[in-house]
């Protein structure tokens, strides 16, 4: 920065910072700082990012924020960053991004405008946008102040200190009807009836023993082949015993055949089974 070419506004402002505690300060003159005016004490922690600092710098221009010189602001910011780097302070990326953008904006503001290619906004427009952002931030800060200094409930104005709460008397009405009661009883009765369990009624069966006795009686008189099923069923009085009679008869027939007292014959699967007494074949 060429501090001799034009007056350094930052230097001026910092020297007139009202409380002397501004975040950007000149060091105490200790004799060695003669040509070193731009050297600043830096206190980054006091700022909430680049915009905050730009706003701080802008306010030091002591003009209405709509009138600030963005060019001067850019130069001050860049000087600040330059200084920070010389002191090897670590700067967060957004500070550097802002610095790069401001450097570019500064050059655009100083150089004659390039032909309008419609892609880039004119430098003045961009400067105006930065000014707008600063104004808007300032406006929000003022608004916060206005809001907080207004009459606030519980601090400045008070509601009734001992409110008398509305007592809500609940009256419960039971909506259960006779039908509900009966339905409840009926469902209980049904459940209770179910809980009695299922008793298996004895199935009428023809036991194997019965079948065997019958077959033994039959084959005594059987010299020719006779159909097992039709012979058995002749002796059946209860029709519901039919299935069990066939099953038991078949089992008994197999047993009798194994013992050698009868002979069985079947021509093919699912064909009728024929039987005759063993004696008949001998």
């Amino acid at each position, binding site marked *: 920065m060429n501090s001799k070419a034009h007056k350094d506004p930052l230097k001026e402002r910092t020297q007139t910072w009202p409380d002397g505690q501004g975040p950007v300060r000149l060091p105490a003159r200790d004799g060695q700082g003669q040509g070193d005016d731009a050297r600043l004490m830096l206190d980054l922690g006091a700022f909430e990012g680049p915009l905050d600092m730009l706003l701080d710098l802008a306010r030091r221009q002591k003009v209405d924020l709509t009138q600030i010189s963005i060019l001067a602001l850019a130069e001050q910011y860049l000087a600040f960053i330059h200084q920070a780097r010389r002191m090897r302070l670590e700067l967060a990326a957004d500070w550097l991004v802002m610095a790069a953008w401001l450097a570019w904006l500064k050059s655009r503001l100083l150089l004659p405008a390039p032909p309008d290619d419609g892609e880039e906004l004119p430098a003045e427009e961009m400067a105006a946008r930065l000014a707008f952002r600063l104004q808007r931030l300032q406006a929000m800060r003022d608004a916060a102040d206005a809001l907080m200094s207004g009459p606030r409930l519980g601090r400045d104005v008070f509601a009734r200190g*001992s409110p008398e709460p*509305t007592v809500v008397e609940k009256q419960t009405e039971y909506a259960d009807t006779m039908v509900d009661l009966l339905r409840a*009883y009926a469902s209980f009765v049904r459940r209770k009836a179910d809980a009695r369990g299922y008793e298996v009624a004895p199935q009428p069966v023809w036991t194997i023993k019965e079948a065997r006795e019958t077959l033994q009686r039959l084959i005594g008189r059987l010299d020719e082949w006779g159909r097992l099923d039709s012979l058995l069923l002749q002796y059946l009085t209860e029709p519901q015993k039919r299935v069990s009679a066939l099953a038991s008869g078949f089992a008994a027939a197999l047993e009798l055949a194994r013992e050698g007292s009868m002979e069985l014959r079947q021509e093919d699967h699912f064909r009728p089974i024929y039987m005759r007494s063993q004696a008949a074949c001998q």
Partner: protein
Amino acid sequence: MTHNAVAETEHDEDGAGTAPVLRPHDDPVHMRRVAEALLFAASQPLSQEDIARALPEGADAAAVLEDVRAKYEGSGVNLVQVAGKWQMRTADDLRYLLRHEVKEQRKLSRVTLETLAIIAYHQPVTRAEIEAIRGVSMSKGTLDTLMEIGWIRMRGRRRSPGRPVTYGTTEEFLVHFGLNSLKDLPGLSELKGAGLLDASLPPDFEIPTPEQEGLTDDEEPLEQMEEEEAPLEMHLPEK
């Protein structure tokens, strides 16, 4: 009055956020306003001394309080003296405004309803009998709820070991369910007719006829006072 009017105008002008208007501290309107605000914002009744502290030295706090009291007399809120201190309170005749009656429709839980039905049909019935009939044990709350509603009552004691309390229904029960007497509780055939029970019930299934009034032969009366005490006992913690 003119004087008051001026005072009023003054603080009407000083809108939000500005410093209070300078006014003679012993302006009675101002003092009344101070007392009013203090009494309104206080969470506890304030003593005359509490008020006096906020008033200019030598001010007559009693007179100021009387001023406030008079102002609120006959309005919806009154300044009243409680335990020697001062408090704003809703006017007595308007206290009804602060009471809301909310009618809440509720239905009994399935278990409670079933228990009620069993008590209705099987009364007089002991707790153990209810449990035996239902086949499950019952939480204390179930009978409590029914007693609280007023639909069941303790009738007496069963003449059996331990002399357990017998339960039955109340007149309120009959009224609520629109029964003229317990004899009007529908029987088995009526339940079947209403489609509530199907035909698959075992042929020997019976629905008991409840006993209405008076004690049965195997019941004896509750002891004097017991009727009062017994519900308490029911709230004892379960083991």
